[in-house]
């Protein structure tokens, strides 16, 4: 096991400052500092607030991860960092830290894709990813269906949201119901005591002529908000638990239906679910039921690995090292709209020539 790559990963694409350390597919440390409380009163992530928090938190979080893993920085085989997609200013803080750290330690640098990292993290939970794997990524920022035959080089987008992310809909509805931010966990909690069939909310993009694997949650969001407003306008009490359960059912019904269909159509027998919404209890139950019925193996990492973290970046970095993918150059920059097909940002061959002499040996 000791010859598996030891990699430190840095994640700053949104509001979590994550530093993780892995050895191959073994998780050694997963240190997180979150600025979520600073954003709550704004009802969403404020980019400048997030960027400021990343700068403050980075060095202490790296320190914490090294202590947690019980390894020395000089023993690392590489530094991985989220190069995109994400909030531009926030990403740049992490990329700057990773470049300086890799350079000062004389280690190769791997700028990797945030979405591919969300998929690869499952290796830390359930071992090597089956190839191919279908992945459903759902969070406040992502709603994508991706097919990967090799997580270091081949991720193909099958479908994505055409408007809002699934997690964003949870936040919005929680806000309309005055339940606070973030919306996911609180809707999940109320929904447990509600009737998911109480109100028939619309299932977006499920008509026969609609794109088979794309998602839309904007119409659902509006429909739920209107339903609540109508109740209030009529002076009636809003059945919060039933609304939460029926809304949640509409979301997870569409997500799981489309994911299972994509697996069947592509002949893929593994589905992984990642992203913050993967922590949703109803999504897990329904996905399990539908996968079992279709003969598909479901893999969902524990909730802490589903939300943004540094361990997922380290996991993909370690896979890059193990498969001999080329490192990024010192010119690596953040790319807020890095396409999912670009699993990492390899350097150009001519860039490394000046560097070697100045590094630690």
């Amino acid at each position: 096991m000791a010859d598996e790559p030891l990699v430190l990963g840095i994640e700053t694409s949104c509001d979590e400052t994550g530093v993780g350390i892995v050895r191959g597919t073994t998780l050694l440390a997963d240190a997180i500092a979150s600025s979520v409380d600073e954003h709550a009163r704004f009802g969403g992530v404020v980019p400048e607030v997030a960027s400021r928090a990343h700068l403050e938190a980075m060095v202490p979080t790296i320190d914490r991860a090294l202590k947690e893993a019980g390894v020395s920085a000089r023993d690392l085989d590489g530094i991985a960092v989220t190069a995109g997609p994400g909030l531009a200013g926030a990403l740049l803080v992490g990329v700057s830290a990773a470049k300086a750290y890799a350079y000062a330690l004389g280690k190769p640098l791997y700028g990797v894709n945030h979405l591919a990292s969300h998929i690869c993290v499952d290796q830390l939970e359930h071992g090597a990813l089956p190839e191919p794997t279908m992945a459903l990524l759902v969070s406040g920022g992502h709603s994508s269906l991706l097919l990967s035959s090799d997580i270091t080089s081949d991720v193909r987008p099958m479908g994505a949201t055409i408007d809002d992310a699934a997690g964003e809909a949870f936040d919005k509805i929680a806000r309309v119901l005055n339940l606070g931010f973030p919306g996911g966990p609180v809707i999940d909690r109320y929904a447990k005591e509600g009737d998911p069939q109480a109100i028939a909310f619309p299932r977006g993009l499920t008509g026969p002529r609609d794109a088979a694997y794309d998602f839309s949650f904007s119409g659902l969001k509006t429909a739920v908000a209107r339903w609540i407003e109508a109740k209030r306008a009529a002076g009636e009490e809003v059945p919060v638990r039933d609304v939460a359960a029926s809304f949640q059912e509409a979301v997870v019904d569409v997500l799981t239906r489309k994911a299972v269909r994509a697996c069947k159509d592509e002949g893929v027998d593994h589905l992984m679910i990642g992203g913050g919404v993967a922590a949703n209890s109803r999504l897990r139950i329904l996905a399990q039921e539908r996968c079992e019925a279709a003969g598909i193996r479901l893999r969902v990492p524990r909730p802490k690995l589903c939300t943004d973290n540094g361990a997922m970046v380290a996991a993909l970095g370690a896979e890059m090292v193990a498969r001999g993918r080329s490192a990024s150059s010192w010119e690596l920059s953040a790319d807020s709209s890095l396409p999912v097909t670009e699993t990492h940002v390899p350097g150009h061959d001519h860039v490394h020539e000046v560097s070697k002499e100045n590094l630690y040996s």
Partner: protein
Amino acid sequence: MLLLALDTATPAVTVALHDGEDVIASSSQVDARRHGELLLPAVDRVLAESGLRLDAVTGIVVGIGPGPYTGLRVGLMTADTFGLALGVPVHGVCTLDGLAYASDIEKGPFVVATDARRKEVYWATYADSRTRLTDPAVDRPADIAERVAGLPAVGAGALLYPDTFPSAHEPEHVSAAALAALAAERLAAGVDLPAPRPLYLRRPDAQVPKNYKVVTPK
């Protein structure tokens, strides 16, 4: 003493090595949009030019602004992380102080002003090239015209607004060479330099973009 100095608080991406007596090597590139890309290669170039390795450095000096935030953080994060990896102290220097030090104005008072965007400047007044009289501030040029009337001025912020700063002249941007020399002088004199914390001067814009979480490309 071997100081690595860097500053990204102005459109310049500037790096210098200073041995306590002199600047050994330096690099300055002006490109306000590519601080993140340019800084590390510049550090690498300066080290290669001097034939030294990063682990020979005994301290890091970084410009703490004020300056546009995204670029400013590139320098600070890089400095912080070098400090962590190398186990050496990281010293902050006000970017405006570096500009004042690099100016050839013998006798003040004078003004240093950099571009704060949004039609504002970051500015401070100086008694001489080593002595700041006022805290760095951010203002509209017209609002400080009376206070800076008749004073010589340096920096891109002064050059941009000739109505307020009619006698503005070079240097336009800060140089890490000046920053390093100033820091070396102060450290040798036993003066404590400020912690490497950014001078933002403005509160963050509390605007939640429409797709406020990560935008997922399709």
